[in-house]
């Protein structure tokens, strides 16, 4: 089992640790609901050192790097980030990722923990031309600072320059003697930042951020409820190698005007019609649908729940899944397993509508 450089810190904080994608990670500290609410109201600190990072240097004119992504990396300004996918030839999602354009010829690609090794194989299989790819995952740590007060907490460490960071941009900052990338990105729907710090200074950064009374540690349990309230997909659960971005309803992260691996299969799927449709639902009570519950309409099984949980913000069950037919907002469904049947109503994402990710003044992402 792999561990992050923060394992001893988590133990000191009495975290409950559990395996996650081959890593021993903190699931909770004080409790999922309290950590969730603290992130929505103040600022949570997450150990995300398990995620993978690649540094790629390439000449876009003399390599096919751009074809690895469903979005156009050639039109990105240096200092910006973009979310999207890398696909297999059948258009299944190999991973969802964020690309950072560092310089004209240099990128950082941030990927999921459990898929890092497979991504490296996938990238190397398809890359050709003038391109150099390095897996820098071991040695590079990552902390996420998320919540409406995250700028107030982080500014004390970075200085006022932080204010210039817009949503989905990044810059270099001098922190604890290192020049590190900080991006205004995250997975909670709140104003927040992701900090990329070499492993050797991660403990020091963690302690410095936690010394602020605005900041509390938050585990992967609340990370999951926070992302689900936004309707964000979790790789390996909501999106996999067997699901295409069109089936997942994530078309806006796919640019069909450019070439990429999997595009032909995606165009064919678009032409032939989709057999899976994403569905988001709110349960009628605190009883919560769970992964693999059946989606039932008028007594017929029409799909499966991929993520379901109690929503600490809405105080009812919420979830997402796939159905064999499109369902209209407001339609009544049931989520069933064994003798449990949970009535629910089809809705739109996000479930939680007051997120501050795009700014404190325009809540509602």
């Amino acid at each position, binding site marked *: 089992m792999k561990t992050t450089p923060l394992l001893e810190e988590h133990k000191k904080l009495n975290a*409950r640790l559990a395996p996650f994608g081959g890593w021993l990670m903190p699931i909770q500290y004080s409790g999922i609901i309290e950590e969730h609410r603290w992130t929505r109201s103040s600022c949570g600190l997450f150990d995300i050192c398990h995620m993978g990072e690649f540094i790629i240097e390439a000449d876009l004119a003399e390599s096919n790097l751009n074809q690895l992504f469903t979005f156009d990396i050639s039109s990105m300004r240096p200092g910006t980030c973009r979310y999207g996918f890398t696909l297999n030839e059948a258009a299944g999602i190999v991973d969802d990722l964020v690309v950072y354009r560092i310089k004209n010829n240099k990128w950082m690609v941030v990927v999921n923990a459990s898929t890092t090794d497979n991504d490296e194989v996938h990238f190397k299989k398809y890359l050709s031309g003038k391109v150099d790819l390095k897996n820098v995952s071991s040695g590079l740590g990552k902390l996420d600072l998320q919540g409406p007060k995250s700028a107030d907490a982080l500014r004390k460490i970075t200085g006022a320059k932080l204010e210039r960071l817009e949503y989905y941009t990044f810059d270099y900052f001098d922190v604890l003697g290192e020049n590190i990338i900080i991006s205004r990105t995250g997975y909670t729907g709140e104003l927040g930042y992701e900090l990329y710090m070499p492993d050797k200074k991660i403990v020091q950064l963690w302690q410095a951020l936690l010394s602020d009374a605005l900041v509390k540690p938050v585990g992967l349990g609340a990370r999951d409820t926070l992302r689900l309230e936004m309707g964000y997909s979790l790789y390996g659960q909501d999106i996999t190698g067997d699901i295409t971005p069109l089936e997942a309803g994530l078309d806006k992260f796919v640019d069909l005007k450019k070439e990429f691996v999997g595009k032909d299969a995606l165009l064919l799927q678009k032409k032939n019609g989709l057999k899976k449709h994403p569905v988001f639902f709110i349960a009628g009570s605190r009883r*919560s649908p769970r992964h693999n519950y059946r989606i039932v309409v008028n007594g017929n099984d029409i799909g499966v729940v991929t993520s379901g*949980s109690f929503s600490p913000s809405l105080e009812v069950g919420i979830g997402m899944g796939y159905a064999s037919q499109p369902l209209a907002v407001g339609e009544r469904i049931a989520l069933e397993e064994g003798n449990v049947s949970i009535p629910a109503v089809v809705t739109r994402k996000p479930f939680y509508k007051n997120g501050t990710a795009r700014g404190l003044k325009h809540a509602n992402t």
Partner: protein
Amino acid sequence: MQIPDRLFYTKEHEWVRLEKDVATIGITDYAQGSLGDITFVDVPKAGASAKQFKPLAAIESVKAASDIYAPVSGEIIKANSELTAHPELINSSPYDKGWIAVIRPLDVSEKKNLMNPADYTKYVEGLSK
């Protein structure tokens, strides 16, 4: 972790307080701690029958759904309706305000299938090794 005297315990981490003609049941401090924040309890209905070690009620935490098993057989006399709106009472007060149901036991000899506080303490210690 609290393991009060004078209660009896199951391997599935329910407790039962056996009084004259009634048995009050709930889940232990260890159980609520392992489950984490409890978000839903499907409390049993008065009049329903309980069978020892068979599912009696459903309980959910943020992360998972699980069953509560009856520590003794009998008829359910009443259930804790407070838990519908405030399932977190089981976290804050597992042996008192978080009680789940009161059963009229059928068979006092079922007591021999339960653990006393000393045995349950040993049992829980064995689990955390």
